[in-house]
């Protein structure tokens, strides 16, 4: 079942007099529960496409449809609510909040997503997910005392603790070594499959492609289905 659709999405950046057409009419659909990888050379517009899909910046033309909603025509506040409740984000760097403990990062995300659980139930959720990512013993640690791999695992936990429908990941393994990258991909795959989360992931690491269901190749502002 299709949960997410881009229809003829264009993005034009104007740098002074020069107009650059970065996305030239991209259409694609994501199927519920599938992991889709977006590959392509650096500067081909992958991040731009991902952020438009995630409602982080507007498209110049075309439509972004999620679960029956048209993100293109919604108000900024409506899009924010969808981002908070239905989307999860992992970026190249963990970008954790430096003054919150691991547990607090996740509690904050539950709160922002408008969770109706009681404080106690929320803490249980946090404990459970920390167990899954093997970070329960670091629950009261601040990000500055975590390793790169640990931070990224917490970032993944933060992206999915509120059970979003879609996970957006922009080169989530780029800051990790090869062994940790594979662990990270396994973690993302396990969690999204278990929770039936649809994933759109940018990567340029060939090795990671074995963990995904579908690969889209970006080039020259257009998307091609590969394999």
């Amino acid at each position: 079942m299709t949960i997410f659709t881009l229809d003829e999405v264009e993005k034009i950046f104007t740098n002074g007099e020069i107009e650059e057409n970065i996305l030239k009419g991209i259409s694609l659909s994501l199927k519920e529960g599938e992991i889709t990888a977006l590959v392509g050379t650096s500067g081909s517009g992958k991040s731009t496409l991902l952020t438009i899909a995630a409602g982080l910046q507007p498209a110049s033309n075309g439509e972004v449809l999620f679960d029956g909603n048209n993100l293109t025509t919604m108000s900024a506040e409506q899009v924010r609510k969808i981002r908070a409740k239905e989307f999860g984000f992992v970026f190249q760097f963990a970008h954790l909040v430096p003054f919150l403990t691991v547990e607090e990062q996740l509690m904050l995300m539950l709160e922002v997503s408008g969770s109706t659980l009681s404080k106690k139930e929320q803490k249980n959720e946090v404990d459970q997910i920390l167990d899954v990512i093997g970070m329960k013993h670091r629950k009261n640690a601040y990000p500055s005392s975590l390793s790169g791999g640990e931070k990224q695992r917490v970032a993944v936990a933060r992206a999915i603790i509120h059970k979003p429908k879609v996970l957006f990941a922009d080169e989530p393994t780029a800051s990790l070594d090869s062994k940790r990258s594979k662990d990270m991909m396994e973690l993302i795959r396990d969690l999204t499959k278990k929770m039936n989360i649809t994933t759109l992931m940018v990567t340029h690491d060939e090795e990671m492609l074995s963990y995904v269901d579908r690969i889209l190749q970006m080039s020259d502002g257009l998307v091609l289905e590969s394999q």
Partner: protein
Amino acid sequence: MNIGWKEIKKNKSRFLILGSIVFLVSLLTMIISGLANGLSQDNAALIKDLPDGHFYMSEDAEETYNLSRIDTDVQNEIMNKHPDAVALSIQMGFLNDQDDKQQSVAFVTSTNSDLFEQVNKGEVIVDRSLKEKGIKTGDRLTNNQLRDELVIKGFVDQKKFSHAPVAYINMEDYKKMYNVEQMQIVFIPGEDSSESFTGLQSYSNKDFLSTIPSYNAEQMSLTMIVSFLIVISGMLFAIFFYMMNIQKIGLYGILKAIGIKTSRLFKMIWTQMFFITIIALTLSISLSHLFNLIAPKGMPFHLTIETTTQLSIIFLVVGFIGATLSGLQIRKIEPLRAIQQGED
């Protein structure tokens, strides 16, 4: 979750520095306000303690009470019309105590009124500050313009004029000393609007105060310093939060990306600003009032709860504006900036 508070807890030293600066600036502001107030009391308590009303001096005196002469007929006309009106005169002068030491005083005499001490001929009532100079009730003082001695009848609290203790004397003695028949000033208490009398110019209490030499100059410079300090404290908040916000642009972007409202980020800054300011103000209020109690007797320092409350409210408002201005840049941060930025 109160993220503003969590940040303070994690970055104590950073906020401690801002807090200390706010504390020092607000303490300085309060001390200087106390000084301004003290000086103004020292300069003009005699006038400041009067109820609201209107002062009249002769037009040709050109705002100098010393040169003013109220025509006796006009004075009588006013006194008939306003039974509570009072005619008075003030002259700077000296009293010699029993050891022949000269004490500079402001001689004050007036027609019958509750607003000014009434003394009999040959008697004088002086400000309590002279007691510390060794003058006692019953002492006989002399003045080089008066043949008879003046006997100290008693003391009054906080009656100063032009930084000198007030000495209330009888009108007859006054007329003899200064060889004049007319009074300088007529004061009519009451909120009524000023009336016009032939040859007289009217002044509100405030206008009259500013005709006292040095009063305006003193108060203006001190008010200026106080306003500068308040503006500086506002800028401190703006600059401090601006610097912190610049460092946190990436973080704000991420928080916005995951769906935190901009208004919540503002609340975070406001919480921090109020927390720091309230602690700093509590400390500076306590210390400045402590100083009020222990300030050396000779130092004109007078700080009221009213003044500190007013200053505190101003500090909170100015801090709020400063923090909010610095926060305006947060509104402009695009959540996606964060994704394009490297590790914090």
